[in-house]
């Protein structure tokens, strides 16, 4: 037994030289922990933060929880998050059901439309809808007032419900993708059993299909609520100018007070800590619901082939619904943005205005600023996706392939950014740059601070995607390379990377597009030097230059179109063989 007891020492020779992947994988994990720790540390401070003149206390928490304004903001946020989910499901759920369970024609086209929906940023929709339905400048309101001789604007987009509607339009693509998975995994023989035993179509839908899909739908709801409570861009674009605040815009206001007020970082940090707790709770709940959902899964054999519901003439109604959705969520907002980009001032579209179209906004915008923004944005778009892929490959490899004890921690750690809203990571990075490394590292105000947060924020998605692909690559393909004498790194390069190429490519394009359009983190962290293109749009918009903002938006959209086409073409190709 002496021999057996000494065993761990034999293993220790390997522990001394852990895989190179593990070391790389631990780096971003450390950064996430540091961000959370900094946030908590600052939240306990009153006075001049980071100096001796500071007292450690829970007072910041007492202040935010005792503030009736915070209470109102929380209620706003709750209404906003719930209406977001409501509108997203109202659109996404029927389309998902039609695509997965009925004979509606043109399914590839539906998938393309919905995927493109994911790519068009919420801020574009928000700006477009401001032009449509804002109480003062929305053309729809002005038309309705003129048409019916109304006293005031009938539609107000600048309310929690209104913003929830716009956010819902933007998230409905996500709702579609999440619920389509649920319908796809469901065993159709359960529905058939109901039909055979005499239940009608609606009865089956109501009593069988929806209850079975419920855990999956509930998980999707929780996921979207988690996004909703921390969304910054749409509440900022629509609400901030109209003094309708959410938790995220409240945090922004405390960190960047208007009219040269003093930033209240302690309050910001304690609100951030509070939001992390809520988000972590929601994420845990999400994980639980997701696991419970597997309870309903009925084992499907090899001959599994879902029977589809014959839609017949209703297919036209279904397509009408989809096209209407595409119109109000994408086409109309983008058309109005394009229109506003060429008009000298905001006015409802009319023949008279068509005569006034010009390039005046492009003469007015500060091209020196644009070029600086372009430089930073290009830098981020080139660097961040590569770093994300290196980190997430290493994390995935350790999680999926190694026997390291670290793999459970890494698996959880890589999921953590899901729970951490981007607003909070941005605040954490801001405080880190200001109070922790400020003295020796000029990170604050540099584009690298933005890059760091982008990398962390995009890690969760990339790691999940590579995890599932790596699981599908037989372990022996890799072991054959080791046995044949190839080193770990060379094996990755020659065997794993080529086999993972489709996944890596889609992760790369997806990350690139998200980084390109990212607004929240950029608005919190961008300085004069490190400003990005979306942050420039934001600063024009917030400063009242709505036509200039539209002009820059149009430029950004045109510039990214080739990449979106590549993504669409590539996505379509990878969808087709699986059918």
């Amino acid at each position, binding site marked *: 037994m002496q021999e057996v007891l000494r065993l761990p020492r034999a*293993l220790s020779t390997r522990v001394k030289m852990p895989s190179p992947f593990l070391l790389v994988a631990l780096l971003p994990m450390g950064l996430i922990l540091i961000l959370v720790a900094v946030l908590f540390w600052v939240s306990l401070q009153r006075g001049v933060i980071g100096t001796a003149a500071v007292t450690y206390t829970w007072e910041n928490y007492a202040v935010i929880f005792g503030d009736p304004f915070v209470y109102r903001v929380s209620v706003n946020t709750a209404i906003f998050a719930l209406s977001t989910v409501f509108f997203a499901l109202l659109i996404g759920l029927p389309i998902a059901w039609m695509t997965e369970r009925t004979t509606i024609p043109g399914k590839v086209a539906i998938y393309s439309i919905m995927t493109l929906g994911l790519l068009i940023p919420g801020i574009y929709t928000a700006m477009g809808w401001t032009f449509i339905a804002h109480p003062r400048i929305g053309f729809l309101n002005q038309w309705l007032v003129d048409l019916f001789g109304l006293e005031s604007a009938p539609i107000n987009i600048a309310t929690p419900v209104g913003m929830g509607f716009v956010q819902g339009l933007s998230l409905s693509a996500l709702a579609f993708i999440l619920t389509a998975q649920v319908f796809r995994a469901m065993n159709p023989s359960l529905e058939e059993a109901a039909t055979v035993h005499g239940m009608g179509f609606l009865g089956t839908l109501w009593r069988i299909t929806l209850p079975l899909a419920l855990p999956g739908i509930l998980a999707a709801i929780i996921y979207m609520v988690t996004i909703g409570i921390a969304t910054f861009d749409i509440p900022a674009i629509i609400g901030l100018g109209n003094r309708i605040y959410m938790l995220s815009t409240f945090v922004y206001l405390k960190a960047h007070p208007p009219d040269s007020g003093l930033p209240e970082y302690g309050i910001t940090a304690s609100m951030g800590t509070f939001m992390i707790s809520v988000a972590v709770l929601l994420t845990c709940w999400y994980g639980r619901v997701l696991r419970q959902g597997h309870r309903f899964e009925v084992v499907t054999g090899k001959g599994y082939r879902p029977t589809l519901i014959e839609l017949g003439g209703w297919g036209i109604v279904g397509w009408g619904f989809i096209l209407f959705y595409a119109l109000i969520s994408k086409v109309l907002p983008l058309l109005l943005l394009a229109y506003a980009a060429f008009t000298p001032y905001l006015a409802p579209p009319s023949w008279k205005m068509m005569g006034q179209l010009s390039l005046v906004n492009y003469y007015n915008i500060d091209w020196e600023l644009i070029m600086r923004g372009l430089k930073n944005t290009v830098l981020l778009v080139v660097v961040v996706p590569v770093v994300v892929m290196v980190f997430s490959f290493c994390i995935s490899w350790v999680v999926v392939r190694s026997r390291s004890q670290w793999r459970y921690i890494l698996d959880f750690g890589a999921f953590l950014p899901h729970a951490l809203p981007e607003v909070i990571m941005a605040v954490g990075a801001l405080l880190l740059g200001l109070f922790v490394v400020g003295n020796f590292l000029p990170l604050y105000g540099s584009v690298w601070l933005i890059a760091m947060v982008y990398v962390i924020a995009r890690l969760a998605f990339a790691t999940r995607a590579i995890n599932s692909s790596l699981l599908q690559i037989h372990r022996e393909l890799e072991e054959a390379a080791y046995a044949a004498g190839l*080193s770990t790194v060379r094996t990755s390069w020659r065997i794993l990377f*080529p086999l993972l190429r489709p996944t890596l490519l889609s992760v790369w394009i997806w990350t690139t597009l998200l980084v390109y359009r990212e607004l929240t983190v950029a608005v919190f962290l961008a300085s004069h030097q490190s400003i990005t293109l979306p942050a420039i749009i934001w600063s024009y918009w917030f400063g009242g230059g709505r036509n200039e903002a539209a002009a820059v938006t149009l430029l950004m959209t045109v510039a990214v179109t080739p990449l979106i086409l590549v993504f669409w073409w590539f996505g379509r190709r990878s969808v087709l063989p699986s059918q």
Partner: protein
Amino acid sequence: MISVRNLSKDFLVSGGKVAALRNLDVEVSEGEFFVIVGASGSGKTTLLRCVAGLEVPSGGEIRIADQVVSSDNPPTWIPSQQRRFGMVFQSYAVWPHLTVYDNVALPLREGAQRVPRNQVEARVREALCLVQMEKLAERSATLLSGGQQQRVALARAIAVSSKLLLMDEPLSNLDARLREEVRGKIRELAKHLGSTVLYVTHDQVEAMAMSDKIALMQLGELLQVGAPMELYHHPNRAEVAEFFGSVNWLRGRMIQACLAETPIGRLEVQKPAAPGEEILLGFRPECISIVEDRSATKTNVLQATLGSSTFLGDQFVYSVVVQDRLLVGKNRTLPRCNKGEVCLRVDPADVMVFPADNKRGMAVLEPEHSRALGTAG
């Protein structure tokens, strides 16, 4: 060539440790075709992967060609890449994004056993020729049949090192007819190249057909190591006998040195045991012979009632009842029947005797009748 001493391997699972290997000793000589056989979960693949360096043993020592590659005292670890062997995997692990040629060439170009660039081509062609795949060299690996993939995997292993080959159930994904053909070819090739082969399989027929030496594993331990004939005819335990073919098992007691009292009467055995000892007797179905002339033989004659019989082409498998015991026999012809009565004999040399106190050994007996039926054929 391979020497394994006191090897153990524990796996950590969510309820604690599971021992996959318990203090194993294995010795494989140069040029030997050594087969490790055992049921699934017996630890045979773990043993092979420890030798290959794909698993880290929990304790013990492994030497390849007299060089320590893994040891706990002093702690030594030579990674897979530096161990110099060729390996064929159960899934073949033919890299799907490369051609047949590149699958064989990649380790020679970039592996630890790389050869000078101008020799790569010749080495690859030679290996592909040996497995008759030279015509398909430029074909993409995704367009190969199972048998072809298997040959590519073999060529790759030979190209890296033909001195030592490790094979993990390389035939289990082939259909039965191809399997028989390929196992002969692999053995032929290994002998032609003078390779030492460590070969893992769960199939006892494959093990006997291919090996110079077989090691039978169960629950992480070696039950018996020896030549195929030795394991088949002189198993050291009931489990070994049971693994290599069906056996008619009987409980009994020695009444003289070579005579046992059993439920089907007194049986003479060849292997002496102490009188009074409780024993477990077994004889294989094909060891039951048909007695044509009763007067010629006296010992170990059984009066039986013929039950069911199955014709398998090359032989009959039949069941007989002897004193309420169901026995299974195999023969080219059916015993001649007189109102259902037949006369059978078991040669004393064919009766295997094991001590009955072996608890695990007794498990082969229960439940007696269904067991005898279930293992027939």
